[in-house]
């Protein structure tokens, strides 16, 4: 048995980052295209989480009859759709009116703050402040023990079944395979990068930047090899050992957020609507002159952002195992930090910023003993540090 | 009446020396190799230029980099390369307030009036280094404070009378017409008592009578030793009123010289005909 260490903190940080990224994707859209620094975004996350709860676990909500539970995935989909409807309401009832009045940035900040108060307290009013959970199948966590030995790497997986720790697998990778794997990963990554970079010219709008595609190729190679080239254990007499805990939640959250990011990117880069959105982000007045229906674009932005927020809320509620009226507001600061860090205007920037923030929070808490209450503070120190050096964020504001 | 209205340097109000009368030989501005890029697009490509006392006109087709040059000179953009000297002082990369304090102020192409403040307040803001502009001065308010504020108000009124916006002094600046905003912008810049003023299209949208009046005023100020560098689209105005003309094209200086010489320069004609209309 080995204990969890830096590697586990890194994995946790990635998951935290993925959850933040869900919110950051939506916020960056609103920030960039609707030009609203949306302080209600955290509470839109909360609303989304509770909308799914209404269908998944209505018995917990005082003013609702207990009409039975809908499976979690279905409830999540209904919740996301309803959140999208609410997003349209925010835009039509509030933000469009202020935009028509040429409200300035400061006004938009305060308006979104007002909306935040309304949303959070609506949840508090209807549900109260108690902790509630979704009704979901129990998730079993698998612990992966990684042991570095003289001859290579041994992996032992254990699970807790009926209170007992059971070893479910044991395999290993000899040194030659590890070295070969790393080489293969680098080669594949570079090959992919080179291949796509050649196709690129000044006019191409690349869906996925070649660098990211290359990195994805490398990671994919390592994962494939790791899964399919499982050889004999290399002994348990370890020099270095560490443990990470993984379960289906982790994988799902990562996958859902990455898929959401890709879909958003495809919409922005390939569809007519997406081009209109990007033109609006660039210059709303100019876009309107060129025949873009700005009102329609803004409506779509709010709907999509509210859906993404709901997705983030549902994932958060599922991951953290309970829902509170403050859950979204607590995420607001890291989400803003991620978006500003990523430079507002690109989905990739938002996700990258979110991963950096998530990693710095969890790794920071691991590295600095007794700092667990300062998770958000760590994210903020990093944000302020970056802003001091580059006031426009890492990826710039272009 | 314009002769009487020349702003006189006021004790405690003017930071720099009074305008350098008689230093005719020395250039005011020396610009060497100023380069500025925006995300791979080169807006300024090694601008070399000296600006002598008097009125200098800056012309060039749209996109030639005139306003970008102004922004680089006054500190609103940091040039990527090159140096700017105001008299003997190196002002490259300094912040806008420091450059203004050195005696070079600018106006904005689209007038930036402080909409919720009155026209009078817009003008009163301009004189530099007022005692009441410091927290201590504002709290304590000695005789100097009172005297200075009275002088500033008189000057602001005078200049408002000249620019024919004195009947609007108590109106919010946001209620002015486009032409009046231009006037306010110039008046505000002049109230700082600068050595050189960079005017970004000061005459666009101003009626012809007023146009002539502003030009007359500028000439009167030049007599007193002030200098102007102005961007203007109306070539005839530039040719009639400027002592020297600078032509910019594609981020660089195409030619400099007396109006007549520039007017007949083949490259200038080419640049204008080949580029956008003026």
């Amino acid at each position, binding site marked *: 048995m080995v204990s969890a260490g830096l590697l586990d903190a890194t994995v946790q940080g990635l998951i935290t980052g993925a959850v933040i990224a869900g919110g950051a994707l939506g916020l960056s859209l609103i920030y960039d295209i609707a030009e609203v620094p949306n302080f209600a975004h955290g509470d839109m996350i909360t609303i989304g989480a509770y909308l799914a709860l209404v269908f998944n676990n209505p018995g917990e909500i005082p003013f609702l009859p207990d009409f039975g539970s809908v499976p979690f995935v279905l409830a999540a989909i209904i919740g996301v759709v309803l959140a999208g409807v609410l997003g349209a309401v925010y835009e039509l009832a509030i933000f469009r009116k*202020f935009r028509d009045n040429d*409200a300035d*940035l*400061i*006004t938009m*900040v*305060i*308006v979104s*703050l*007002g*909306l*935040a*108060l*309304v949303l*959070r*307290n*609506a949840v*508090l*009013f209807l549900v109260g*402040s108690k902790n509630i959970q979704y009704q979901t199948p129990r998730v079993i966590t698998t612990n992966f023990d990684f042991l570095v030995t003289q001859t290579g790497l041994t992996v032992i997986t254990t699970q807790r079944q009926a209170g007992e720790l059971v070893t479910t697998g044991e395999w290993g990778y000899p040194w030659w395979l590890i070295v070969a794997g790393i080489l293969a990963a680098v080669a594949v990554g570079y090959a992919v990068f080179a291949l796509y970079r050649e196709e690129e010219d000044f006019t191409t709008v690349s869906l996925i930047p070649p660098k990211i595609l290359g990195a994805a190729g490398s990671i994919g190679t390592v994962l494939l090899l790791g899964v399919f080239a499982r050889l004999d254990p290399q002994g348990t007499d370890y020099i270095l050992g560490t443990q990470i805990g993984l379960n289906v939640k982790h994988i799902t959250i990562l996958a859902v957020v990455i898929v959401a990011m890709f879909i958003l990117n495809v919409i922005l880069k390939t569809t007519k609507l997406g081009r209109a959105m990007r033109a609006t982000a660039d210059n709303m007045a100019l876009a309107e002159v060129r025949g873009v229906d700005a009102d329609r674009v803004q409506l779509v932005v709010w709907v999509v952002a509210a859906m993404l927020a709901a997705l983030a809320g549902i994932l958060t509620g599922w991951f953290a195992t309970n829902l509170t009226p403050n859950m979204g507001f607590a995420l607001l*600061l890291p989400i803003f*930090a991620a978006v500003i860090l990523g430079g507002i205007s690109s989905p990739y920037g938002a996700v990258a910023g979110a991963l950096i923030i998530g990693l710095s929070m969890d790794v920071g808490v691991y590295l600095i003993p007794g700092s667990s*209450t*300062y998770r*958000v503070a760590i994210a*903020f120190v990093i*944000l*302020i540090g970056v*802003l001091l050096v580059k*006031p426009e964020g890492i990826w710039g504001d272009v | 009446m314009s002769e009487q209205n020349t702003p006189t340097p006021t004790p405690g109000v003017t*930071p720099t020396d009074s305008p350098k009368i008689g230093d005719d030989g020395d250039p005011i501005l020396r610009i060497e190799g100023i380069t500025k890029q925006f995300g791979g697009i080169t807006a300024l490509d090694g601008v070399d230029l000296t600006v002598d006392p008097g009125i200098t006109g800056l012309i060039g087709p749209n996109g030639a980099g005139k306003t970008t040059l102004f922004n680089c000179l006054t500190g*609103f953009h940091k040039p990527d390369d090159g140096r700017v000297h105001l008299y003997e002082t190196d002002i490259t990369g300094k*912040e806008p*307030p420091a450059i*203004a304090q050195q005696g070079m*102020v600018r106006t*904005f192409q689209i007038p*930036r009036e*402080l909409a*919720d*403040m*009155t026209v*009078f*307040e817009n003008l009163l*803001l*301009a004189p530099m280094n*007022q005692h*009441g*502009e*410091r*927290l201590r*001065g*504002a*709290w304590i308010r000695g005789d100097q404070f009172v005297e200075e504020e*009275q002088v500033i*108000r008189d000057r602001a009124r005078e200049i408002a009378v000249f620019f024919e916006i004195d009947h609007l*002094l*108590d109106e919010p600046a946001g209620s002015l017409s486009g032409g009046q905003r231009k006037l306010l912008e110039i008046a505000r*810049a002049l109230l*700082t008592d600068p050595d050189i003023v960079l005017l970004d299209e000061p005459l666009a949208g101003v009626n012809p009578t007023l146009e002539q009046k502003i030009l007359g005023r500028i000439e009167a100020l030049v007599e007193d030793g002030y200098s102007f560098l102005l961007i203007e689209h109306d070539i005839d105005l530039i040719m009639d009123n400027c002592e020297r003309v600078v032509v910019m094209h594609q981020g660089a200086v195409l030619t400099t010289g007396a109006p007549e010489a520039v007017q007949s320069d083949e490259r200038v004609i080419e640049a204008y005909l080949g580029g956008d209309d003026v």
Partner: protein
Amino acid sequence: MAVADFIISLLTFIAIYSLFGIGLNLKFGFTGLIDFGHVAYFMIGAYVTVVLTMPAGAAGYSGIGGFALPELFGVLGPIGSLFGWLLGVLGGMIAAALVSLAVGVPTLRLREDYLAITALGIATILTTVVNDEEWLFNGPFGINTVHAPLRDVFPLSLGSFTLNMAVFGILSLAAFGLTGYWLARAFRRQGRRGKLVLGVLVPLVAVWYFVLPTLSDGMVELTRNTLWLFDPTAGPKGGMDYDRFVLLLSVAALGGGYWLVERTINSPYGRVLRAIREDEDVPRALGKETFQYKLQALMLGSALAGAAGALWAINIGFIAPDQFAATITFYAFTAVIVGGTANNKGVILGTAFFWGIRNGTRFIDVPSQYSIQLAASRLMLIGVVLILILYYRPEGLLGEQDYDIPLPSRDSSGGTDDV
């Protein structure tokens, strides 16, 4: 509880939060800085003042200090003790200003929306630090040994019962007279709608304050409400009790803060601040070091918030980190915007409106299991009011104030003289 006592506690609240709001108005209303972390300086002012003024080794306290400044100067009698407390308040204000300096240097160069979010973040972090670091200010347990200045002097008695009643009674009547005069002047200046509002509201309040208590509790109650500064039950001969003193102290502090901010903005300095709010590039192009101005406005506003915090501490008598949640900042923003952004009178009006509604709802009887719902609906109402005001009346109830720099002798005023 007599109506007078309720009014006194409400007015004390309003005075303290108005001072807090005036500090915010200097930042937000006049300079355009969205400081979503304003409450942090309220907290710092409260904590630093309390620690500087309380005795060392207080029971149940394991943080830094106390430094017992009033005791130190107490040898000079009550005035010395009061001076010690004032020094403590000054310390709290300076601490608040210094922390805002540290916050301002990195953040004031950022875009205005970035400033809002970083300020909120830093305030949240500061509250977390105070809450989690017990060695600092006793952590979540708070401090209940708050030094109350001149506590020993009260209830203040001037001699006999009659003398007390006469002196404090006359002072009370004078306060009513002043209020009446001020109301009448305000009434005359209003348009038709303002006249209507005042004409309805003032009699209603008067009936509620004078007539209803008399009908239910008789003449004694009327006397108590009329001679509100005099408390017949305070001490053997009656007198002025401590709550009334805290109210007067808070009103005096508010007056001082109001005067200071008015003097600051009605000056060439204030012109620069407002120019920054409108379009920072303009004062920069005219040679003003705007960064310095923003920093100073931030520090001054924070110092006022710190003073409000010191008063808060003696008014409540106990401070703990959970009193300083981010919502306090949002309340102040609401009060400023409702009353009229960039209008110091508006801040007081907005604060009175806000806390009047908030504390007034305590008379609504709801079963205790719905207390969360009541609190939540209040905050929802605040959010809705904020949005509606910004849409239908963005200038607030009073609108931006007028400015004037009064000059002696020569007639050369640029604006109106109504400030």
